[in-house]
């Protein structure tokens, strides 16, 4: 839970409390940034879930999330977040938080039904003087499958820094979008291109090198270790690393 004590208008104190957790984005930044296939999945019902056995613990989902939600466990180095009780939802139950909430602040249902319920709440809030009341279902992440009804929907930042227009960071979408396939093409292209270059142009070879197979083995092989010291110009004197070896 996140709690903010704010004054939306001068002299009008408000306590704003919200349940802070995974928003279950329709276009999840965590999923986009995850390198491990199957570690983050989005089900047809909209729930975004982490499958621990496939998680490698790299932390990309932590940086990919526009809401700063996932965390890496210090116990097993795997990423965790709210699963919206996907196991319970899968067998027709509501999430545990909805079941446990004693005041009816949380509701669970199809997105359509929840929008309908929210619009009733908004009418209610507007009647009570909250003219900017509205539903928080940000389009920047394709909408979310966890929504808020906010009495100050024009200023979501009042609610412990809820982002006004959350989006997947351009750094994440650039890299995981266009740059990744382009880089793959460049790397594979360099190898394939080199191969065809060799086949077309052929190698660079010294013509005057003795070939033992052609010319017979040399009687003597001399290794020139270093240019003679006397013949070396003073300015090109090299440090000791080039000193002649025994």
């Amino acid at each position: 839970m996140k709690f903010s004590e704010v004054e939306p208008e001068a002299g009008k104190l408000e306590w704003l409390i919200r349940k802070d957790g995974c928003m279950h984005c329709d276009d999840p930044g965590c999923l986009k940034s995850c390198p491990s296939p199957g570690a983050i999945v989005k089900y047809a019902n909209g729930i975004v879930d982490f499958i621990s056995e496939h998680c490698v613990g790299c932390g990309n989902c932590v940086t990919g999330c526009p809401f700063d939600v996932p965390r890496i466990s210090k116990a097993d180095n795997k990423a965790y977040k709210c699963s919206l009780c996907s196991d319970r939802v899968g067998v027709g139950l509501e999430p545990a938080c909805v079941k446990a909430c004693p005041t009816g602040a949380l509701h669970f249902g199809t997105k359509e039904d929840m929008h309908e319920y929210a619009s009733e709440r908004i009418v209610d809030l507007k009647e009570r003087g909250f003219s900017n009341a509205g539903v928080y279902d940000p389009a920047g992440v394709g909408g979310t499958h966890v929504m808020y009804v906010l009495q100050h929907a024009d200023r979501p930042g009042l609610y412990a820094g809820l982002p006004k227009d959350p989006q997947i960071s351009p750094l994440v979408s650039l890299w995981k979008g266009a740059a990744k396939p382009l880089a793959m093409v460049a790397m594979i292209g360099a190898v394939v291109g080199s191969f065809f270059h060799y086949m077309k142009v052929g190698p660079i070879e010294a013509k005057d090198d003795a070939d033992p197979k052609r010319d017979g083995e040399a009687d003597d092989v001399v290794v020139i270790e270093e240019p003679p010291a006397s013949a070396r110009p003073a300015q090109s004197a090299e440090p000791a690393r080039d000193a002649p070896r025994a």
Partner: protein
Amino acid sequence: MTTRYLLRRYRDATRLNHWFVALMFFAAALSGLAFFHPALFFLTNLFGGGPWTRILHPFMGLLMVLGFVFLFFTMWRENLLDRTDREWIVNAPKLLQGDKSSMPPVGKYNAGQKLVFWAFGLSLLLLFVTGFMFWSPWFVGYFPILVRRIAVVVHAASAVVLILSVITHVYAALWVKGSIRAMTRGTVTAGWARLNHPLWYRKMTRGE
């Protein structure tokens, strides 16, 4: 009686240093590529699965960088670009078509080799710095999320530059016959040196 002349190009220590870096490069590159693209995730099987790949990759990368530091200080002076290198770069397209006639005489390294050397140095420096910024779980906590987002992108981009440079490096060694023995045996033939590095050949044989 026939005598073959060989020229010493790399000391034993430099060669072992080079192959250590090369080995660490392959380990770090394969484990890094595993996380670069989902289609390459199968590479994690080489390192004992996903979590092990994630654990090992930074250590292999760090060893590669540390190994390169020694190579860097052995070779950086000979890789400083000078005025004749521009002429080499301008004429490089002709060289790629197999026409060596318009290339200026080259010392121990040609401009292409020098550029590859600096591409290695720069990309490894960036990989080293950005790698720490999201090294989980040891150092990641010291960096805010925005810095980590930038670091991941720069790390991946630098890795692509490094891999492309290595492909260039390996292909050049295969293309120019007689080059590989410089790093496997330490010596090159006189004919190879005269053809590819005439100024270095002259320096090595002056007075004989």
